[in-house]
């Protein structure tokens, strides 16, 4: 009865002895976009790292379309179809744009992403395909990080602050791209500090604070709930 694309239940994650995630749980339904919000240091990136297998949760379960993935190695999790656009982009700096995409290629029966499709989504990357990724601008690196994740033919796409450090116009472009991916039916978790961007794109919203979920609801409920926004996101 696995209707969820990604389900995270009651995970506890530690850095050494430091207990960072306290029973975090949320569910992403197929084809939906879940916005994961929270202040700096709330535990969003730790949550992404745990789903991706960079960190092993001490307790709790993570399932991808019903299959348990918690405890698998990152490369195995990527093979099963969870792809990450990491915070800070983390492109392979000494690889060319094309190589960055090529090494992340992952064949999957239902997958349709190819180099050509990524290039047609981001024509800038095509123009610069022989350039070293380290020499790209921030916006281009973000496109590359997104393209690289798409090359893995994601069944679930995790995006960790894709708008961070980008000029407003580029943020707008990234937002359009995310909307386009969602329209194609991709299931997405979007971690953001940019609340407006998230509320515009998300179906559901989860807010974390000091490593625990403090709110979850639909985007519409979140938008009208000033108290939640003021208390946990500390804005407006």
């Amino acid at each position, binding site marked *: 009865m696995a209707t969820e694309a990604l389900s995270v239940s009651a995970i506890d994650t530690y850095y050494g002895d430091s207990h960072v995630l306290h029973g975090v749980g949320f569910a992403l339904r197929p084809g939906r976009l879940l916005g994961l919000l929270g202040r700096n240091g709330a535990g969003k990136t730790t949550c992404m790292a745990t789903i*991706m297998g960079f960190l092993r949760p001490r307790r709790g379960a993570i399932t991808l379309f019903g299959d348990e993935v918690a405890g698998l*190695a*990152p*490369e195995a999790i990527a*093979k099963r179809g969870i792809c990450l656009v990491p915070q800070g982009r983390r492109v*392979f700096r000494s*690889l060319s744009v094309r190589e960055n995409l090529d*090494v992340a290629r992952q064949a999957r029966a239902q997958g349709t992403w190819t180099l050509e499709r990524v290039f047609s989504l981001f024509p800038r990357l095509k123009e610069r395909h022989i350039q070293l990724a380290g020499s790209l601008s921030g916006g281009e690196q973000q496109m590359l990080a997104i393209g690289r*994740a798409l090359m893995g033919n994601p069944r679930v796409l995790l995006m960790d602050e894709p708008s961070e450090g980008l000029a407003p116009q580029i943020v707008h472009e990234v937002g359009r791209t995310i909307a386009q991916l969602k329209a194609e039916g991709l299931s997405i978790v979007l971690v953001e500090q940019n609340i407006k961007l998230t509320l515009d794109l998300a179906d559901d919203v989860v807010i974390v604070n000091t490593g625990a979920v403090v709110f979850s609801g639909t985007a519409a409920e979140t938008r009208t709930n000033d108290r939640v926004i003021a208390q946990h996101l500390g804005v407006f």
Partner: protein
Amino acid sequence: MQFWIIQTLNSIAFGGLLFLLSSGFSLAFGLMRIPNLAHGGFFMLGAYLGATIVYYGGHFWIAVLGAGLGVGLVGIAFERLILRRLAGNVQGQVLVTLGVSFIIADLCLLIWTGDPWTVPAPAELRPPLRVAGFAFPTFRLVVLAIALVTAVALYLLMDRTRLGAMIRAGVDDMEMARGVGIPVSLLFTVVFALGAVLAGLGGTLGAPMLNAYPGLDTDMLPLALIVVILGGAGSLLGAFVGSFVVGFLYNFGIALFPDLAYFILFLPMVLVLVFRPQGLFGRVQT
């Protein structure tokens, strides 16, 4: 004049040999983030294996291949059976490579005794090559040619293939490489085995110049370390340039200022460590 030409040629040939020794060492260092301190042992083991094959009547080139193969298998076994179990424990891994280097040294002493084994260069390469009145040592030129061919092949592998790009991605950002599905554990084995094969080949190729003797391992390992610190861990170009720089410093240092040879050799390493710790061509902090 003949002195300078011969010393220059010897330096270049020795640089080629150092490239065989240190290119795989550097790639493994960059990818796995640990110096394989048994790498000098791999080189010595290659020299002894080659010497043994030649002793039992094998042709020199068969000995070279046999040594590469034999040491390659040792390298694969070491990586798969021991290093792998210590994944994530960098300190443990470094100590284990040191331990294995002692084990190799002791086993070699046990099997091949304390007397040096000489390996004659293949007969067809012994007569010097005479060009314009100068006599060039033919065998050293061939060693150099082999090193250059190896350099080109490694360059093509690292720069033009998807496997090479995956290795470089792992050197850049190991965690993210795994996160995009790159099978890094397989890459570890490939790179480690490659380094062992080249060290083994190099051991036998170098044997007509260096011999196989107890202590060859500890004579060579520091040279590989200097090459990698100069050039930068994980950088093929760095290993290439570093090898020839060290080849020249070592040869001319010993020939001109024998008392200062080690000073001349280690000074550039210290300067690089202080002023450019990632090496001249590297990105990874060693």
